[in-house]
């Protein structure tokens, strides 16, 4: 009998029920909390606890199979002085910013094309979404094989077209490895930008464009003064979300290069993996991710607030 007070007022003469109202509200509250309980337990056990445990680990010398002792800032001093750490810092930044720029430009172009009156639009929309729908590990395995120095499609095609003199070792040459990883990742992730921008464009009223046309605005002016402003919120959310995802991407680097050649593609997630799972030094691995925590939490909070605003509106 958990009934909201509002419906009681409508349904039943209120005097006889006023006595029972507090108890029914308490019961309602209890039901609500009971339904939420499994989720709360899961969030505490699998998110909050590991989150703070990771911070604690970064102050200990824990390895797999040993109980960690508190060692203060030792891990942080060690990690910061390590050349691989600064390489990871720079690489994570380069990877994130370049991939974001490519995804933004390609995503916007795809959205603009799909927003035109083209034949078979639904088919092309579904088709161009495929890289995002495919499992990420499949995408990166395929790209590794595309990049293969001896038998890969890219080298065969470039040689047949006469564009290169000899095969290129895309993933094992320091000068091409990072670019290759960025391209493979952008190929996978541009549809997220495209589909989000397209969804935004379809909410912009056609009358605005008609009016602009009457006033003699060029295509570029229409894009600059109608389409872009109409997309500001979505652009903000997509860029923030994608910054978080890209900066924390692990699969592209692990599956394509493993961080090599000689740390040319070592990003911070890969470094955490190498320290924690290959060298089995959990304390230092946790210290690396703790160092990235403030930046990440700031980004996550920003995107959470942006999304929340939209949800409340």
């Amino acid at each position, binding site marked *: *009998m*958990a*009934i909201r007070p509002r*419906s009681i007022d409508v*349904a039943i003469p209120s005097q006889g029920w006023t006595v029972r109202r507090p108890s029914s509200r308490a019961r*309602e*509250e209890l*039901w*609500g909390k009971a*339904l*939420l309980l*499994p*989720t709360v337990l*899961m*969030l505490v056990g*699998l*998110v909050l606890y*590991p*989150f703070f445990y*990771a911070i604690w*680990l970064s102050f200990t010398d*824990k390895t797999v199979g040993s109980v960690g002792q508190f060692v203060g800032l030792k891990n942080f001093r060690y990690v910061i002085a390590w050349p691989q750490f600064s390489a990871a810092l720079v690489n994570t930044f380069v990877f994130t910013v370049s991939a974001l720029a490519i995804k933004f430009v390609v995503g916007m172009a795809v959205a603009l*094309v799909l927003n*035109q009156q*083209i034949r078979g639009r639904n088919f092309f*929309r*579904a088709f161009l979404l495929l*890289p995002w*729908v*495919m*499992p*990420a*590990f*499949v995408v990166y*395995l*395929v*790209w590794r*094989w*595309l990049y293969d120095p001896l*038998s890969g*499609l890219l080298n065969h095609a470039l040689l047949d077209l006469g564009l290169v003199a000899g095969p290129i070792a895309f993933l094992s040459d320091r000068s091409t490895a990072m670019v290759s990883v960025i391209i493979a990742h952008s190929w996978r992730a541009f549809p997220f930008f495209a*589909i989000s921008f397209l969804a*935004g464009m379809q909410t912009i009223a056609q009358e605005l464009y008609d009016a602009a046309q009457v006033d003699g605005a060029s295509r570029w002016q229409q894009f600059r003064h109608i389409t872009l402003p109409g997309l500001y919120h979505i652009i903000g*959310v997509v860029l923030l*979300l994608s910054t*978080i995802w890209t900066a*924390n991407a692990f699969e592209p680097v692990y*599956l394509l290069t493993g961080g090599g050649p000689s740390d040319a593609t070592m990003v911070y*997630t890969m470094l*955490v993996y190498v320290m*924690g*799972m290959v060298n089995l030094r*959990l304390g230092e691995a*946790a210290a690396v991710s703790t160092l990235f*925590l403030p930046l*990440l939490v700031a980004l996550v909070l920003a995107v*959470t607030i942006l*999304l*929340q605003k939209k*949800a409340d509106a």
Partner: protein
Amino acid sequence: MREPLSIRVLTYGLLACFVLMVAVPLFWMVTTALKTNKDLYEDFSYLPSRPTLQHFVRVIQREDLLRNIWNSFAVASTTTAVTVVVSAMAAFSIVRYRYRGREWIGRFILFKYVLPTAMLFVSLYAIVVALGLGNTLKSLMLTYLSFTVPFCTWMLMGYFRSIPAELEEHAMVDGCTKIGALFRILLPLSAPGLVASAIFSFTLAWNEFLLALVFTSDHTTMTVPIKLSMMVVGDQYIWGQLMAGAILASIPIAVLYFIGQRFVVKGLAAGAVKG
């Protein structure tokens, strides 16, 4: 209104480029799986000269890939079943009940949906080992909830909000309990949302890489992504089998995408961007 010719040429020209860009890697994946090793490594040809299914047979017989596919399936379906029930309960509670603190839980769920797994895997690994769940599928079924539940709860909150509460209130006036109204009114009306959240949950679990890589360590407990990534370093002439395996691993997701395409596109827009 008809577009000027220059715009149409530009549109279709760009479209052709994008289609080609997406199609080439897919073409390479499919043709590689169908080529003989001779076509792949000796006399290169862009198309399979004698198409063969031998790579599919080998990856199943020699690499025992069906076992890993079964592992992935067990993990993804268990996770999905638990996720849909738990998230529907949580979303119903947050959207339709009134008690203090529920907004904060809602915000925290969103926060977790955005927080990447890479931040947590070291401590999750330590916890999994401490619980004695190292190298088991159970460890994956358990820890995958940490991202599937927030995602699906957030999605279902949006869905439930879009259904007017008056419908349930009418049912309650007619003597239905609040939980009864959930089962008789809200859940049937949000069936598309439930299907979409199940598809997303299954896909997220099926594709998950990092935790599976860290938690499982032998061929009998590996999920498909880990098994295939281990094959890369194993043998040099493995690409036919790898691409065959990649296709097999994509089939369940392709089927789900085909069935639920309109839910997926809607859900992507609703869950990730529009809120």
